[in-house]
């Protein structure tokens, strides 16, 4: 058994034809799984951001299994894409179709793909751990579903010390509620910061590498990731700090043509004591764009 682990590594499971989704909104206070039996339930929890990142990949694949006789794959991808327009669900459908050519059932294809992805995630972290300095003082944003746990293990294997600085990642606080929580749960050294503290930390020389995920990547190496990634990359470049993006399946498209999802304004206030959305106008782009000139290296899966 691994010494370090996180429920966020596999936040969605399939058990007896029911999809169980770890409700990320309720973390870190409660670890609750939401049962999904109908396609509308899957769509609803996706819309409500109960799961995201690798969780939405798993949700898509398991939906493909349990709704196989009701919703064709392309239609499923289109339904998911309508809710989360920035993420490439049609690509997941294509990968699954490819896998189905080699296996007899969708259940086997999905399980194979998930195991394959996990192997790739770990290999990607090994690649990154080899590159990072010793000690590695890593600044990170949002949450990459347990991959930083893999990174920490790989850094240890290389006999490298590591310390994580985590951006709280407003408005959903994924940095605080997910990344900081999963690292500290494993007693991994980490400190939490406000999103606006990055420049001062970099100026003080506390950071020597930045690591982030990427929801989309182009063949040119431009990425789309959680809102706040772009200023992180701009400032890293200004302070000569290497910036690494964890990427997968680059596409030959212009990054500026990808639709940036804008979420409802009430979500800007959702973790505050009061919902101010009826009296305060707000915006909520949930992703931003970072061009390759600000990225040191894309660590491909």
């Amino acid at each position: 058994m691994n010494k370090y682990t996180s429920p966020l590594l596999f936040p969605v499971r399939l058990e007896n034809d029911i999809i169980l989704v770890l409700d990320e909104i309720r973390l870190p206070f409660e670890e609750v799984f939401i049962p999904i039996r109908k396609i509308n339930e899957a769509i609803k929890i996706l819309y409500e951001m109960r799961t995201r990142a690798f969780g939405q990949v798993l949700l898509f694949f398991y939906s493909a299994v349990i709704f196989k006789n009701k919703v064709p794959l392309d239609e499923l991808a289109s339904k998911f894409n309508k809710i989360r327009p920035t993420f490439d669900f049609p690509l997941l459908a294509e990968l699954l179709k490819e896998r189905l050519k080699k296996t007899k059932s969708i259940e086997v294809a999905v399980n194979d793909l998930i195991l394959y992805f996990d192997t790739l995630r770990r290999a990607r972290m090994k690649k990154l751990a080899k590159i990072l300095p010793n000690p590695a003082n890593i600044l990170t944003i949002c949450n990459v579903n347990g991959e930083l746990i893999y990174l920490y293990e790989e850094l240890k294997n290389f006999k490298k010390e590591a310390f994580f600085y985590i951006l709280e990642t407003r408005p959903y606080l994924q940095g605080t509620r997910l990344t900081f929580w999963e690292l500290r749960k494993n007693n991994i050294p980490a400190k939490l910061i406000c999103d606006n503290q990055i420049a001062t930390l970099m100026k003080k020389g506390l950071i020597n590498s930045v690591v982030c995920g990427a929801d989309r990547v182009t063949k040119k190496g431009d990425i789309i990731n959680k809102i706040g990634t772009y200023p992180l990359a701009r400032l890293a470049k200004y302070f000569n700090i290497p910036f690494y993006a964890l990427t997968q399946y680059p596409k030959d498209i212009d990054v500026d043509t990808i639709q940036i999802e804008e979420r409802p304004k009430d979500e800007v206030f959702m973790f505050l004591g009061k919902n101010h959305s009826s009296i305060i106008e707000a915006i909520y782009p949930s992703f931003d764009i970072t061009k390759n000139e600000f990225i040191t290296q894309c660590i491909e899966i």
Partner: protein
Amino acid sequence: MKIADINDLLLVWGPLSKEGISQIKEEANLVLIPENRPYLIGLKYNIPLLKKEGVRFIYATDNMLGFLFYKNKIKKTLLFYKELKPQGLIGICGSLYIALLTKLHQIPIKIYPAEKFISKGLDQDASSLDGKNFILDKDKNNFVVSADDELVGWEILR
């Protein structure tokens, strides 16, 4: 409101002063009010003031500002400082972040003295939001970076 519908924003960082409000009214642009974590000065202090003065504004979290710079939505930054020093100005947490993003996007920046505000009773660091604690108590003291005031060098403001 959608990003496509907004333009020529006046970005305000720090506690607004009377002088700052006069400047804002003169320019008559839509004002961008970021949260100003950890204290939430934007929400708790600046917005009530702008509402009282009848100034149009829009609210965003601090990490959304980069995207607005990228999309050329910000016309000018108004940075409210606590103190002037020979090396530069002292501003609240995040002042360096704002000053650098403004400089890197070649947007004009104007500085004004901030109104004095009392942070007692407000969030003091990233561990809490609007009074609610989001991390385990055991991690509270040693695992959060304190939100100290920041020095912004004159070379950045030039």
